[in-house]
């Protein structure tokens, strides 16, 4: 009877295409909105990935990667003396303004790396090299958002805090939530590039001794120094949750997703209802000929699951295609589609289909087979 159900479904081209296109659109919106949300949230913690240190030590009041209270310089030596610390280096990170050659100003994320080791330097260079940071006035800039600095090339210059900065390299650095260009330099030069404050050191980057886990060393640092310490993963999630709690993004995206769900229910529900109404006579005939309610319910469920799966496939495929298209050009579009989102959107599509098919199921169950004898 599932064959009959299939033929009843696809034979009515108009309703079939309405259902498929409606559900595809719902899935597309769901995956697209969800991917934008995931993409935005992941971008909040991109600096953690860009620096790439295993352990981050900071002031205990830290709320997110960009919401920190600087440390005293003496904290560095205290951290270096903690058991299990292999090495510890300072990191400077602040939003500062760059004066471009055309006289315009642009905010950048200034990252000051340890003078000697350059720990936290970009791993992939597109031109130049990071060792050149040891030259006077040198900076390495991130490719992402570079256009805001008028697309400088190696040896081009600009000013930061009235001081000369010469580009010695361009690195492949991902975009972050604030979407400001990355400017890497040495720690000491970064202090010169930014207005002087009493405490300057943003973070201390730490690596554990071989054989020790990052988590063990984090606990040692906390216990010994009274400072906060996070593994890279914990700091990422701390930042992501901070943005989840303190911005309207989850609510806005949540409302969008809710509307998508409601619209999906409306489209699918109405079409299924119209389908049941139009086929009432035939369902009645099937009932009269001895088709049980269970078989009819199975037929309707099959129809709804079929359109759900096809609609989901088209919608999810289209959403991924849009994401792929948009993520050309150095990931301008904040778009990340985790597997979990695909599973969730599949579940949502199927729930929409099953819930909306309930309307026709209850109509068919209540249908008197005697309806077929009414002219």
């Amino acid at each position, binding site marked *: 009877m599932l*064959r*009959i159900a299939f033929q*009843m479904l696809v034979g009515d081209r108009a309703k079939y295409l309405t259902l498929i296109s409606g559900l595809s659109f719902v899935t597309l919106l769901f995956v697209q909105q969800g991917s934008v949300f995931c993409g935005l949230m992941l971008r909040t913690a991109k600096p953690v990935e860009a620096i790439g240190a295993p352990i981050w030590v900071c002031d205990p009041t830290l709320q997110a990667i960009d919401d920190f209270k600087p440390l005293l310089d003496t904290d560095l030596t205290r951290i270096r003396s903690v058991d299990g610390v292999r090495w510890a280096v300072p990191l400077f990170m602040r939003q500062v303004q760059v004066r471009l050659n055309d006289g315009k100003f642009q905010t950048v994320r200034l990252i000051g790396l340890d003078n000697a080791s350059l720990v936290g330097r970009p791993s992939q260079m597109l031109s130049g090299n990071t060792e050149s940071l040891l030259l006077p006035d040198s900076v390495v800039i991130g490719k992402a958002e570079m256009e805001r600095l008028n697309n400088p090339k190696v040896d081009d210059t600009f000013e930061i805090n009235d001081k000369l900065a010469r580009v010695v390299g361009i690195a492949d650095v991902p975009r972050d939530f604030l979407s400001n260009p990355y400017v890497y330099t040495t720690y000491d030069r970064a202090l010169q590039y930014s207005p002087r404050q009493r405490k300057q050191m943003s973070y201390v980057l730490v690596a554990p001794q071989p054989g020790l886990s990052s988590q063990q060393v984090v606990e040692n640092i906390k216990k010994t120094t009274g400072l906060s310490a996070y593994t890279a993963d914990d700091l990422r999630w701390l930042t992501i949750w901070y943005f989840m709690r303190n911005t309207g993004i989850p609510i806005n995206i949540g409302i969008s997703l809710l509307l998508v769900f409601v619209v999906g229910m409306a489209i699918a529900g109405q079409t299924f209802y119209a389908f049941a109404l139009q086929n009432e006579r035939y369902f009645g*005939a099937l*009932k*009269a*000929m*001895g088709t049980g309610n269970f078989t009819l319910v199975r037929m309707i469920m099959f129809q709804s699951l079929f359109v759900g799966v096809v609609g989901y496939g088209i919608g999810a495929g289209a959403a991924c295609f849009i994401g792929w298209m948009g993520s050309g050009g150095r990931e301008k579009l904040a778009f990340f589609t985790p597997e979990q989102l695909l599973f969730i959107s599949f579940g949502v599509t199927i729930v929409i289909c099953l819930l909306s098919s309930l309307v026709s199921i209850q109509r068919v169950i209540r249908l*008197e087979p005697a309806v077929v004898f009414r*002219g």
Partner: protein
Amino acid sequence: MEHEIAAKLVDVDKNFGLGNTFVKVLKKVNLEIHSGELTLLVGPSGCGKTTLLSVLAGILDTTDGEVNVFGTRVDKLSQAKKTSFRRKNIGFIFQQFNLLPTLTAADNVAIPLLISKVPYREALKKAKYYLEVVGLGDRVTFYPTQLSGGQQQRVAIARALVAEPKLIVCDEPTASLDGETGKIVMEMFRQTALKRDRAIVVVTHDNRIFEYGDRIAEMLDGRIVSIHENKNHK
């Protein structure tokens, strides 16, 4: 030659509605349907013919009385058992044909077999055979909209026959057909459907097809008022 009793209705009442809408459609109806006979239920519109047919086929519950079909008290069966009973014993022919428009003629005919879980290939083979029987062997892949009214009714007849039921109930089978086509369809129906062990009940108010009935039960105002035997077929 005496024919076996296929179905027997005893003092059957059927009421609809409550209060102001209350209506007594069947009033103490008594009727015997014989195997090997085509019984016509005739009478004016609203006299209860279709209701009586629905009660006999087990698709409508009685208010009171007994409905005995092939020795089974249909009125006593649960809905699930009635459904199963209809599947095994009763074939239907409807006034509006009720052929699924998205299915080919062969698929439409195969439906009663598919309901009984006969494999599709086997069902289709049998469906094609019955389409041959009703003279539509060259129309198996046609959709209902590609067939004339008479051809659609012949597909419906093939569908009613395919599961080889012992009782076939027809509701106004010629009402949607012109006079000549109606006669051709009834002639063909009588020839192909009527067997010694099968009873056929046809509801009609089309007096042009009265000649095809072996027995004619006339209804008026919810009652059987007369039963005539058609001597031409005896």
